[in-house]
């Protein structure tokens, strides 16, 4: 095995060690519940939710082969391994200096954000792999691969659109710059032009490689993207209207993740922001325009699109991380004697996050999903937040239902999705004498949920309770 293989192995081992005994958080629980459903229900639920179905369809298979949390997360591990191998090959295609390739790979492989998503039961690792494949296809002029990778990416995550736009434009520019049309028809080739070998441009192939995926993607646009965009524009989604601060914060989050001591948040923000500003300046001067576009273009596009419909979320920007890492390492290499002023803060911030992701405890949720409940009990959930996380860990004899009677809260599942996920609804007046209420009141709960929660909590026996500045709730027995 070569050194880069060892780096990849160590990174995956670290990522897997972190997930030992780690419960699903809401999004992963959603994946775990969805992939257990019959195929028709899975597709129906996906079509009315947010992301395209490809990832769920693959995990539906892996989770049947490997039971438990590992089955839900294993596919991301495979994607991460493949993504790092593709990155290794990309570094050669991007003509990055030999001695910088291992540090870049090590930085990407060991960045906390990469370790987190390498084992997350969500589609981000798959999206990153496909974006890297798209770029590899462009640089190696394999248009068939570009077509396949683009189609798969578009059916993996909605942010693939932003990456495909940037990569598509890059492909056209690279072809424009690096090739020229054949000036003379082949019948004149016998005349001989010494040292002149015009390289035929492949615009038609590029158009085909990008046009066909758009055609294949149309059904999802019509049945998925447009209804969701309209719903989000009406204020249904929990993502709030964009501000400049929020856009900058998203960039910070994708580099730093949410795992760091909160007292250091501003210090870390300054280090990261300063590092990125210097990196961009250095890259601009070194004319690394393609990498700059790939690193920051999708973020810019997502921020601009958020002016129409709020959709900026840092997680979807994971595929930018390898490009940012390349820019950072190249900038450090160019920094000359000042190199240590860049390396030390970089290692300190990465180190702090690494310690944090391993030290943040093993509980993902605010309420313990393993709280034992007596068999033959009805577990009533105030909203989706607990319904989905507790639903992913069914207890024998305990049936889970959603409490009706309130309007939808921000970001809640649509009724049609909940129906496809086979969750029933119960009205407050139909509640039996004995039941367990699981409720969490947070920033997105409606006034109706607040009233209902306080009313039903009154007189109930507290099984578990939690209180934070951003919400409170618990498990209560009636």
């Amino acid at each position, binding site marked *: 095995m070569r050194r880069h293989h060892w780096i990849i192995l160590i990174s995956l081992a670290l990522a897997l060690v972190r997930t030992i005994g780690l419960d699903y958080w809401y999004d992963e629980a959603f994946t775990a519940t969805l992939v257990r459903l019959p195929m028709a229900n899975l597709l129906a639920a996906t079509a009315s939710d947010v992301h395209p179905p490809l990832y769920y369809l693959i995990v539906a298979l892996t989770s049947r082969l490997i039971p438990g949390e590992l089955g839900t997360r294993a596919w991301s591990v495979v994607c991460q391994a493949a993504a790092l191998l593709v990155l290794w090959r990309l570094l050669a295609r991007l003509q990055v200096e030999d001695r910088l390739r291992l540090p870049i790979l090590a930085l990407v492989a060991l960045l906390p954000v990469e370790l987190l998503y390498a084992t997350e039961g969500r589609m981000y690792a798959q999206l990153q792999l496909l974006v890297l494949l798209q770029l590899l296809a462009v640089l190696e002029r394999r248009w068939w691969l570009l077509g396949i990778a683009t189609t798969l990416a578009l059916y993996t995550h909605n942010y693939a659109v932003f990456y495909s736009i940037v990569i598509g434009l890059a492909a056209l520019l690279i072809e424009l710059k690096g090739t020229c049309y054949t000036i003379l028809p082949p019948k004149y080739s016998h005349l001989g032009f010494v040292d002149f070998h015009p390289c035929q441009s492949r615009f038609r192939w590029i158009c085909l490689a990008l046009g066909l995926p758009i055609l294949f993607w149309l059904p999802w646009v019509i049945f998925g993207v447009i209804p969701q965009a309209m719903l989000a524009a*009406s*204020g*249904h989604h929990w993502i*709030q209207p964009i*501000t*400049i*601060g*929020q856009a*900058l*914060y998203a960039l*910070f989050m994708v580099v730093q993740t949410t795992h760091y001591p*909160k*007292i*250091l*948040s*501003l*210090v870390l*923000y*300054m280090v990261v*922001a*300063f590092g990125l*500003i*210097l990196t961009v*300046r250095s890259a601009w001067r070194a004319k690394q325009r393609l990498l700059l576009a790939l690193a920051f273009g999708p973020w810019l596009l997502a921020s601009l699109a958020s002016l129409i419909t709020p959709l900026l979320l840092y997680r979807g920007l994971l595929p930018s991380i390898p490009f940012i890492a390349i820019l950072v390492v190249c900038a450090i290499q160019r920094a000359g004697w000042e190199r240590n*002023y860049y390396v030390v803060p970089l290692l300190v911030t990465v180190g702090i996050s690494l310690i944090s992701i391993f030290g943040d405890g093993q509980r993902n949720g605010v309420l313990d999903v393993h709280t034992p409940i007596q068999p033959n009990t009805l577990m009533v959930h105030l909203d989706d937040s607990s319904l989905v996380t507790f639903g992913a860990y069914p207890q024998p004899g305990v049936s889970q239902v959603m409490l009706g009677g309130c*309007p*939808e*809260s*921000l970001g809640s599942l649509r009724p049609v999705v909940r129906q496809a996920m086979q969750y029933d609804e119960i009205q407050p007046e139909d509640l039996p004498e004995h039941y367990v209420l699981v409720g969490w*009141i*947070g*920033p*997105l*709960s*409606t*006034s*109706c949920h*607040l009233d209902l929660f306080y009313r039903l909590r009154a007189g109930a026996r507290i099984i578990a309770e939690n209180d934070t*500045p*951003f*919400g409170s709730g618990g498990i209560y027995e009636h």
Partner: protein
Amino acid sequence: MLYDRVMENPYYQTWKQSEAARDQIILILTATLVAQTALYPALARLYQSPLLHYARVIYIAGNILADLAIGLALGASIR
């Protein structure tokens, strides 16, 4: 608008206020850092002396220390 349904919720108010405060702090910090980045080369042109190297080191170290102090104070206050 669905947002109206949560406006009365005190947790929503806390969340939105903390986000607004965070956005303002981030904007100020980013603007300061961009200004500083522009200032370094200007300083380099200003101090054309053998002591330039030490002046830059002291300047950068001083800035980082000041940033850290401000950051820690702000971080502690909004915790």
